[in-house]
């Protein structure tokens, strides 16, 4: 699949943003993080800003972005529509929580309820994003039981590492938060390795034989219907060399998982502000690494239409 940067950035940014929003809503709503104006302002601005940037980026993928409002209508059948509805609906409790927690300095009663609702909305939105990909049968690497947990795990991971950096920056960090961010990073690493292992051994039942209805023997493409690349090949026939794929997987592992894990582990032993700086570098490296991971998620996915063009 063609890795369009607008979609790569969109899924990575909203994952991190909703992860951070869920943690702030949950921890703020339950009173684990005290209501602090500057911490709250920067935290909520970061979470909602990253989400908004991601959502705006996704409209860059559209042929007719001025009609994007229509995408809220088909939530009964379409995961993309459900994502649109959930992402916008989450802004309501998130906004109320922001007003109560940041501006009024409250963290009980309706503010707590709004925080928990915002967290629930964030989790639901990430689920709908994951399901858009997990529901596509023609792409075997996506239509697997690994896809939805991956989106949830990576949102929790990037959100936790961001939240830890934020709390450390405001001298509100704790060993528990550091440990949680480190564990989430290791969990994300493990899930990505398991997914790659599964995809590399995937045996797809759909072949050129079933695609053409010609049973038995081999079916070899001897002539395309057109001489130049068409929409299908540009959009769904994207190919990546095996050696580049291997190198990008190593870059993903280093930037998204190994470097953040090491920095977070070191941060346990560093005094302020060094621990905060290490935590921020961890968040930055992880975001860059997740962009590479998401690029590969698209580039390594193979669509059944490529079978018609003789591409295995």
């Amino acid at each position: 699949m063609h890795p369009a940067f607008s979609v790569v950035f969109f899924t990575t940014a909203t994952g991190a943003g909703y992860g951070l929003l869920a943690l702030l809503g949950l921890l703020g709503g339950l009173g684990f993080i005290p209501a602090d104006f500057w911490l709250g302002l920067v935290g909520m601005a970061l979470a909602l800003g990253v989400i908004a940037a991601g959502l705006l980026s996704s409209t860059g993928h559209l042929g007719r972005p001025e009609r994007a409002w229509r995408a809220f209508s088909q939530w009964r059948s379409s995961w993309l529509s459900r994502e649109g509805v959930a992402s916008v609906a989450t802004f309501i409790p998130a906004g109320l929580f922001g007003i109560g927690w940041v501006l009024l300095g409250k963290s009980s009663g309706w503010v707590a309820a709004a925080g928990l609702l915002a967290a629930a909305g964030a989790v639901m939105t990430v689920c709908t994003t994951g399901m858009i990909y997990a529901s596509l049968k023609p792409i075997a690497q996506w239509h697997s039981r690994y896809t939805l947990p991956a989106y949830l795990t990576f949102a929790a991971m990037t959100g936790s590492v961001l939240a830890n950096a934020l709390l450390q920056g405001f001298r509100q960090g704790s060993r528990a938060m550091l440990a949680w961010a480190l564990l989430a990073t290791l969990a994300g690493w493990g899930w990505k390795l398991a997914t790659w292992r599964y995809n590399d051994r995937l045996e797809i039942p759909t072949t050129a034989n079933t695609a053409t209805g010609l049973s038995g023997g081999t079916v070899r493409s001897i002539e395309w219907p057109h001489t130049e690349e068409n929409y299908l090949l540009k959009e769904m026939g994207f190919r990546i060399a095996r050696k580049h794929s291997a190198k990008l997987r190593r870059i993903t592992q280093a930037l998204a998982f190994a470097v953040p894990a090491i920095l977070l582990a070191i941060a346990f032993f560093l005094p302020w502000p060094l621990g905060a700086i290490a935590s921020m570098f961890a968040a930055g490296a992880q975001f860059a690494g997740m962009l590479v991971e998401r690029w590969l998620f698209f580039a390594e996915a193979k669509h059944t239409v490529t079978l018609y063009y003789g591409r295995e």
Partner: protein
Amino acid sequence: MTCLPVQTDKKLGLVIDLDTCVGCQACVTACKEWNTGGHMAPLTDIDPFGGHVDGVWFNRVHAYEHTTELGGRTVNFPRSCLHCEQPACVTVCPTGASYKRASDGIVLVDEDKCIGCKLCSWACPYGAREFDTDVGVMKKCTLCVDRIYNDNLAEDDRVPACVAACPTSARHFGDLGDPTSAISQLVEERGGVALMPELGYQPTNRYLPPRARSQRAAKVDAPALVPIKAEGGFLGWIDRMLSN
């Protein structure tokens, strides 16, 4: 609404005979010619006379070499929308632009509602949908809805443009939901198959596999040629001289 109809009154579709298709591309050009002025018009071409020609087509004819233990054969393979009974291209549509008609099962796009998110083309395993980068919306085969119900055309012409154009009658149009229709009988008789049935899209269109090849060589009644006998006399002398 992108929810699918529980049942359609008819299942209009195509049956394509891979035995008789000669890969002449007549259906491809007839489709383009009709539809660039039809329901989904225009079928934009980008840089049509340049080095990187691209454009929207609803029908593409591939060529394959199918090799089995009986030998190899070339198979021309027209590929277009199969008007599936479970079209995920419709259910994934976030705007309601894609829909499947309850009356005849045809899958269509309402161009005025399409936002060009391209998700439907990802959801189609058959590559039936092509994006028009110029208009910014998705386009697809309409089964020539503007021909098959067109009172301005003679009754014989109320078939999709690709069917009307086929010089070898490799393309057939009709109601595949009616087991007594000529097209359903043809599928029954020739063992028509659905493409990628394992994905569960339940395509309406069927492909008739190439007929089994004959194992007997053609019978030739003429006797085998025999060498001319070298004769005596003048002609025999010439034959011997020329043979040296």
